[in-house]
């Protein structure tokens, strides 16, 4: 299993859609073959089409707001006394998280395929909120599938979805979280694929959805590469790019431009959700040795039992609370290009506390997992090492959880 250079990772799959010969693919019911094929053709045509790229860039610049900031966290760096810590503030993007890139591209694709309805899944509610925003912007009718448990814990995002005119469909099966929302959304698509476009909220699902999402979030690292060159005049010798990993869309977007660099120069670190400290449940298939399995149309490492039933997961962060992970992260893990670890709920909360005390930054619980890892390793590194954390979401949506867990100080 080997990575190729100079070819985007999203395109390094075989004719059946597998990365490294075994991750990904399209395990879909026959009914979805045609809509998936149609989407695949449309996307491969449009991504080469100059006027489509121009349109995408127009909306990225003027609607999403590019570039998002790249800032040094002076106080945190000083406090930890080791490596310098920087943040790519992707939560600056319109709507407050990286999910807007994928949502915007899907809305554009939906329009160009002549479909008027768009549906999507959501965990933290950001994918849903952004899809509802993009749908409103482009005049599409929008339905969002969301686990009943997540609807309760991410209320601010639900309010936003409703305000944007989207219908939220509560999913009450199984664990009532993202995994069930994705299943229900796929079921809905099976029944309505002739009129409706489906947006998968992360770099998961059948091959084409991994590709579209990765292609969209790659904007993050395109911006970052330029920003690094401006700030440092060159690419520094020691960089660590730390990103949380649920499905893995923000991590792929944050890393894509840097995968060809040697590992010794740019280390890629993915941080999964370790769940509550004393709980056996987690959402960390990569770092806690889950077996390869098939979930939601793709083969990846999946939290499951010996029988192939999908395990329940647990995390304080709804956006990371998912038993599977992107096939491209499985590929990056097995080729050893990226390192994957996890942070517990408590680690993430502590990181959030420290960060908000020292810096003018309000990362959601998802990137707080990444900050936890940065805080853990920074003290033992020298100041020439540049740690960059993708602050991919804003904590507004976590208002209720933070209040409950950290008291009134938030």
């Amino acid at each position, binding site marked *: 299993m080997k990575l190729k250079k100079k070819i985007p990772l999203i395109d390094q799959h075989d004719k059946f859609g597998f990365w490294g010969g075994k991750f990904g693919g399209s395990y879909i019911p*026959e009914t979805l*073959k045609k809509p998936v094929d149609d989407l695949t053709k449309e996307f491969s045509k449009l991504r080469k089409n100059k006027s489509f790229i121009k349109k995408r860039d127009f909306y990225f610049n003027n609607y999403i707001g590019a570039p998002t900031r790249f800032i040094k966290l002076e106080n945190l760096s000083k406090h930890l006394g080791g490596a310098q810590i920087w943040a790519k503030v992707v939560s600056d993007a319109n709507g407050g998280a990286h999910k807007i890139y994928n949502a915007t591209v899907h809305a554009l694709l939906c329009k160009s395929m002549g479909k008027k309805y768009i549906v999507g899944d959501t965990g933290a509610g950001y994918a849903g909120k952004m899809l509802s925003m993009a749908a409103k912007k482009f005049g599409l009718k929008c339905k969002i599938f969301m686990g009943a448990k997540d609807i309760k814990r991410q209320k601010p995002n639900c309010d936003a979805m409703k305000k944007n005119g989207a219908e939220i469909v509560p999913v009450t099966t199984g664990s009532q979280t993202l*995994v069930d929302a994705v299943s229900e959304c796929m079921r809905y698509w099976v*029944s309505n694929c002739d009129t409706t476009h489906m947006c998968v909220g992360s770099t998961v699902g059948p091959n084409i959805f991994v590709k579209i999402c990765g292609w969209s979030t790659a904007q993050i690292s395109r911006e970052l590469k330029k920003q690094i060159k401006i700030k440092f005049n060159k690419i520094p010798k020691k960089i660590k790019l730390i990103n949380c990993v649920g499905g893995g869309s923000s991590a792929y977007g944050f890393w894509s431009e840097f995968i060809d660099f040697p590992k010794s120069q740019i280390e890629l670190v993915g941080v999964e959700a370790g769940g509550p400290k004393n709980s056996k449940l987690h959402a960390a298939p990569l770092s806690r040795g889950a077996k390869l399995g098939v979930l939601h149309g793709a083969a990846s490492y999946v939290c499951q039992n010996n029988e192939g039933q*999908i395990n329940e997961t647990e995390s304080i962060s709804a956006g990371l609370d998912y038993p599977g992970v992107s096939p491209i992260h499985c590929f990056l893990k097995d080729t050893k290009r990226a390192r994957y670890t996890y942070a517990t709920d408590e680690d993430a909360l502590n990181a959030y506390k420290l960060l908000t005390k020292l810096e003018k930054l309000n990362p959601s619980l998802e990137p707080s997992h990444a900050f936890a890892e940065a805080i853990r390793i920074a003290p033992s590194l020298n100041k020439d090492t540049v740690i960059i954390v993708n602050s991919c979401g804003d904590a507004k949506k976590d208002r209720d959880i933070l209040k409950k867990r950290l008291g009134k100080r938030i």
Partner: protein
Amino acid sequence: MINPINLAFKNAKEKKRPALLTYTVAGDNTKKKSLEILKSISKDVDICEIGFPHNTPIADGGQIQTSAYRALKNGLKISDVFQIVNDFKKTKNSKPVILMGYYNMIYQYGENNFIKKCKSSGVNGLIVVDLPWPENKGFARKCKSKAISFVQLLSPTTSKERLKNIIKDSHDMIYYISMLSTTGGKLKVTPKQILNNYNKIKKIDPKKNCVIGFGITEKTIAKLRSADGLVVGSAICKEITRSLNNRQNPVTNVSKVVAKLKNKIS
């Protein structure tokens, strides 16, 4: 020797009616009850589809999901599924069995092991919902080498070119999904439209046994009787749920429903 699945179709044809296929979930609501249901409906059924329940079923509607969760909640394991088949096949009136489920369970069991176990417990065919053609070619070939029919699925969205290729690679039976829907959806196309598409499939290879499934109930089954076979699943799962809710015996109730279905196509 003629394959038991083909024989079932032949027998039905001789009686000038479509074959009746039922779908029940193994272990719904218990191992014992699901076996009893199979034994009891067997007299009216030509082929039994038995679902191996998965907790993330992306193509099943509410009724079958409920049945699957119920079976899993009662601790059903894959080994139990094979045991149920094994016990069923030992009974006098047993019918050909087609197992139906999702690929991850086969994947975790190991393809070769799974097929071996199918063989030894008497499974005659397999339907894997999320393993479409051409990805299923290798697995289908393995099934065939052990005389297990791999059932290819076709849907209203399947292109003509694809239809031809899939039918060419199919074994004893093909399964036409009546409409764009998960299992158990309300029939949203007319039986005439369904049969139109069905006839297009039959034209490509008249000798292949083709069944129609998804959304078929007591109300609609008679209108589709010109097909080689008809599958009823969700309506049966629904009856099990209804019986349990009313504290009635699902075995008797389901048997009545199946007898009625049979009556409508005889």
